[in-house]
């Protein structure tokens, strides 16, 4: 690919270009959006969402997540760069296989929840009108909104509106779900239901791209992560990328009187130990954690507690973005 003589049209290329990887549900290359105001909302990002993944798309508010999603869905034109949706450079050709919830739900306030879904289904040129009523009912049932289907949308609570947005995304079987802040406005119970729904869909083979600024809800469901800040994708990959990024520590608690022995054992293992009362604390480094308790017991140390503290998503996130949440530009 580096041979200068070879030019490949990214739109028609397949396989050999990283951008058109058939294994990717969403792929972007050097995707950039500069708004007319001059603000660079998205700055050359290479997003890669493998098929079958639950991809947690993280970033503080205003970091460019939503603009990226809008470009991927064809709502906003990139200033430069390319994006592929389900392998296609033309989003319109594959969007009927994609369910999307973008920046909160949007429905006609004076139509009922059900009428709103049927309106969207009527807009879908590839949907079978004969099954519309059944599919609407199923989608409403799936998000627990069937009882309120006859109410006008404007009477819905924020959580119900969010559920209707999810129902719209589930009107047809989808290969990819793009969920932008899907739990906004939901109570803890609703948040849990959405997490379960995402898991269930992912198990059935649906790829899910879920963006959020709430780390907890992402951490519990995702298989892959991407962290954005100020328009740039700072980190991306399977969840294990976190372990490479942050520092994993071990905490060992021992019986009184064994602290010195234990510290000696850990030093022999090559760890830099700091002790506090009965607790020893060290960076794990490349050491296999299972070796530690074994070595301690072998040395006759009474081990009371042993814990491996992997870097939390929050810790990595804050290290990377260097700012608190909800910092808008």
């Amino acid at each position, binding site marked *: 690919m580096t041979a200068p003589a070879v030019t490949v049209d990214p739109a028609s290329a397949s396989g050999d270009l990283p951008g058109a990887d058939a294994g990717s549900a969403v792929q972007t290359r050097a995707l950039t959006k500069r708004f007319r105001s001059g603000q660079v909302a998205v700055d050359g990002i290479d997003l890669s969402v493998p098929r079958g993944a639950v991809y947690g798309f993280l970033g503080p508010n205003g970091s460019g997540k939503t603009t990226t999603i*809008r470009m991927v869905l064809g709502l*906003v034109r990139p200033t430069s760069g390319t994006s592929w949706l389900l392998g296609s450079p033309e989003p319109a050709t594959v969007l009927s296989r994609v369910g999307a919830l973008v920046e909160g739900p949007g429905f006609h306030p*004076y139509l009922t929840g059900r009428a709103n879904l049927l309106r969207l289904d*009527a*807009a879908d040129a*590839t*949907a079978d009108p004969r099954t519309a009523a059944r599919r*609407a*009912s199923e989608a409403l*049932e799936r998000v627990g909104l069937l009882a309120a289907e006859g109410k006008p949308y404007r009477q819905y609570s924020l959580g119900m509106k969010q559920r209707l947005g999810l129902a719209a995304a589930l009107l047809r079987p989808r290969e990819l779900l793009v969920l932008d802040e899907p739990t906004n406005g939901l109570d803890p119970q609703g948040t849990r239901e959405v997490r379960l729904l995402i898991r269930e869909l992912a198990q059935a083979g649906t790829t899910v791209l879920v963006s959020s600024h709430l780390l907890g809800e992402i951490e519990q469901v995702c298989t892959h992560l991407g962290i954005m800040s100020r328009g740039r994708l700072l980190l991306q990959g399977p969840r294990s990328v976190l372990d490479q990024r942050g520092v994993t520590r071990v905490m060992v608690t021992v019986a009184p009187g064994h602290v010195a022995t234990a510290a000696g054992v850990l030093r022999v293992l090559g760890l830099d130990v700091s002790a506090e009362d009965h607790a020893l604390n060290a960076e794990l480094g490349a050491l296999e954690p299972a070796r530690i308790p074994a070595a301690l017991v072998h040395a006759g140390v009474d081990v009371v507690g042993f814990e491996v503290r992997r870097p939390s998503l929050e810790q990595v996130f804050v290290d990377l973005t260097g700012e608190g949440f909800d910092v808008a530009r």
Partner: protein
Amino acid sequence: MSLAETPTPATAPAPVPSMAAAYWRLQRSELRLVLGRRRNLVLLLGLAAVPLLLGLVLFFTQDTALDGQGPAFLGRVTGNGLFLVVASVFLCLPFLLPLTIGIASGDAIAGEASAGTLRYLLTVPVGRTRLLLVKAVGALAFAAAAVSAIAVVGLVAGAALFGVHDVTLLSGDTVPLGAGALRVLAVVAYVGLSLTGLVAVGLFFSTLTEVPVGAMAATVVVAIVSGVLDTIPALSSIHPALLTHHWLDFAEFLRLEPDWAVIGGGLAVQAAWVAIFGALAWSRFTTADVTS
């Protein structure tokens, strides 16, 4: 599960509907949306009240004071109910109809944008050209409904209050009732077609903003400004091209021999406005970033 459930087995492979069937499914949904919306129904009722009120006022006053003041047909209403249709349309043309058109067409795209439904329609996906066409047909249908509401209520009220008779034309000649009714129908059709240019203008404004009220107001302002410019003699060279200049040419149909060149010219000007602002709306809407 709902009672409305269709008995179609879930396992049947879903055939992809034809393009025409898919278009009309969305078009029907749009017409239901536009014509079923309470605000729009209130507008139609308001327009329908005009001939009713005008008819009642003229009936109870049997006013001849209007004779010689307003256009000739206003004074003839009491003599022939058919003229109530023409008089009502004439009264609504300067402001009420442009207001109605402005609301319907200005809301077309901007209304979806402000409700947040535009992004969901586009990710369904609906092609932008198809959506614009559906919206244009919806706005035109509402314009037709508005003119029809005036005409139908005008006809019913006119017939009930004054009866319908052979029609005395502007020249003083009389044509039989059937031919006269046809001429009144032609007046209504001409007025309806005269509004298409304004619909296109409103549709274009609607693609520029996500604030529907802004697009509505701008559309109404265009009609009003056009009317004002039409009264300034110094600008007479541009008068024939103005959006509203030919609106009152419907009176041609009330002459013994309508001047088809005048009518054709009026319709051609509307066609030009439709072409220009339709193209502007299309080029704007198919390239704009949807950030609403």
